[in-house]
């Protein structure tokens, strides 16, 4: 479903991603781990369509479409969802109003009728239970005055309502205490489906105790330097990112003895 080929990305002339290759199939959960500054969030933002990043080389396929050719809102309408690391506040705009606008934009894109208000409310009331947020959050302004944990849960709530095909969770675990982490993970697990792919971007392994990934990739210095199954995450946790970086450092020598 998602195929990234040799992706190079620069920000203000500074290379961040230096040839990322990645393939994610429907129904799979992939984790992308890496130290700070490795380019994890850049990758997420580029997939979502952030304009401030410049793709200098490589391609990204979403199904059979060129993802990089699509506007951010078109990507969203086609089923790409990103849970933000830092969800923004929109004062005065209620969560429900925001979600309804999003939902209707997506439905319009698909050539479907707008959902009627009653039906929409039913969906919203149901889905918010998934992340254990109080019903009052439905009518509160988007992220305004939410705690860090509430913001992250609100992202997963939005994901549940908007029903994406590809979900990218950008450090959804950062700043969460253990209870909130479990809640968020439970929410995500409930949203795992054979026709949906999820990319989990995280610094720490602990989230992956709850959202067990099919594949784990380590991003370092703008490249994916190691891939493996869920055990790779545990090994990383035990040995630290220094272990990977040391391995990478010796690799060229090994290749050219």
């Amino acid at each position, binding site marked *: 479903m998602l195929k990234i080929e040799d992706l190079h990305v620069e920000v203000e002339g500074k290379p961040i991603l230096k040839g990322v290759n990645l393939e994610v199939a429907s129904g799979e959960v992939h984790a992308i781990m890496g130290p700070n500054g490795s380019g994890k969030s850049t990758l997420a933002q580029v997939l979502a369509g952030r304009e401030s990043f410049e793709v200098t080389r490589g391609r990204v396929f979403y199904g059979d479409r060129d993802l990089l050719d699509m506007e951010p809102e078109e990507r969203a309408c086609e089923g790409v*969802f990103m849970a933000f690391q830092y969800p923004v506040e929109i004062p005065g705009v209620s969560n429900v109003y925001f979600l309804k606008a999003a939902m209707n934009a997506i439905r319009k894109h698909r050539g479907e009728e707008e959902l009627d208000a009653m039906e929409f409310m039913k969906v919203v009331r149901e889905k918010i239970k998934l992340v254990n947020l109080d019903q009052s959050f439905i009518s509160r302004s988007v992220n305004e005055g939410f705690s860090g944990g509430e913001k992250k849960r609100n992202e997963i709530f939005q994901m549940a309502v908007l029903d994406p095909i590809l979900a990218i969770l950008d450090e959804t675990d950062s700043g969460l205490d253990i209870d909130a982490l479990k809640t968020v993970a439970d929410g995500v697990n409930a949203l795992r489906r054979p026709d949906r792919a999820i990319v989990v971007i995280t610094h720490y392994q602990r989230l992956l105790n709850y959202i067990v990934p099919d594949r784990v990739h380590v991003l370092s210095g703008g490249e994916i330097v190691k891939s493996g199954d869920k055990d790779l995450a545990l090994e990383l946790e035990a040995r630290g990112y220094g272990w990977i970086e040391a391995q990478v450092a010796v690799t060229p020598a090994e290749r050219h003895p």
Partner: protein
Amino acid sequence: MPSANETIQELANQEYKYGFVTDIESDAIPRGLNEEVVRTISARKNEPNFLLEWRLRAYRHWLTMKEPAWHNVHYPPIDYQDIIYYAAPKSGKDGPKSLDEVDPELLQTYEKLGISLQEQERLSGVAVDAVFDSVSVATTFREKLAELGIIFCSFSEAVQNHPELVKQYLGSVVPYTDNFFATLNSAVFSDGSFCYIPKGVRCPMELSTYFRINAKDTGQFERTLIIADDDSYVSYLEGCTAPRRDENQLHAAVVELVALDRAQIKYSTVQNWYPGDKEGKGGIYNFVTKRGKCRGADSKISWTQVETGSSITWKYPSCLLQGDRSIGEFYSVAVTNNFQQADTGTKMIHIGRDTRSTIVSKGISAGHGQNTYRGAVKILKGAAGARNYSQCDSMLMGDACGAHTFPYIEVKNSTAQMEHEASTSKIGEDQIFYCKQRGIEAEDAVSMIVNGFCKEVFRELPMEFAVEARKLLGVSLEGSVG
């Protein structure tokens, strides 16, 4: 260009039984201003002597005044001798024959605002049949209002039919010496609205110039007077969300409100005069003096305004809180896009004991727009226990616009409580990207974010008006985010 419509309404009005004095003079008086012009205007309108005298006093005083320069708006000098101060309605022949002849861009805007075809014709001045729905609707309303003793008519009619009320209250809130533009208006005002709510009457509907027969373009010097007698209530709507073009560049209106004991007046405005083009050419100069006097104890005056039009907006709807425990409110949204300039705000003058005032101002600047909030809160010596809460928020879109805040506070009674909050925010790329990532297009996102920002003001508007205002804001800011 509402001239065709004027004529039609004038003609239609003649057949109504409420004794309108419809003035269909076809000739305009020559350009320029002198005492003779003032006399002519008064004579044409068949005014009683007290009014002519009042106009003349205003004119003579105006001659001694200087155009204000303290405001934060810039425009080339106005030649006051190059203005026609009295022009009778033009014939329908000048207007477009059908909507096909109207500027397509204007029609597009109407479309976006969801304005009916018939209303589009009215607004763009197409010569329509003299018999149309709004006239009969208006008549029904008038009958209902008359039963309650409510007087709601044009200013000219009031002068003829209720001269004693006009004489008693005209200039009682905005004296003819008040300021350059108000004084000019006092000398040459053409027409406007008059409204009197008798004791104990709660006006059962929102009064709108739209439903008033004769509510056509009242010219560049409009005068409105609203009096709410003891224990009465009225909600008054001014303006229209549809963009209006007008050949007169200078508009200097005066609005006076008087609230007697326990009376309440709610005055809502949506102003969408032609703002000029994208390069800043053309557009209306809107120099308005609006003031309400809470004369009675426990009275309340509430101003709500949504200002999106005009190339220059200069207005400070104010409250004189004279009656003990009286309340003044000001809720404002002002938008400046392209090269628009707005210098707007309010004055709350606390005179009586335990008077309260609330100010909520939301300024939005986009393009090269310059938006100034200017507000004064004065607590006079006798105003023991007075309270004020002010909140001024500015939002910037892009980096070529400006937001300015000039709050003046003067407290002469130590028991007063004052609160002032201010914020400036930039509509963030982050916010827009967040919306886009959820499938919402940039323009819808901007409109949503801005509407959220203005929520506290919009909820003060009557329901229907609020819905229209919301759409209007979106249209006004179209194209302001790339």
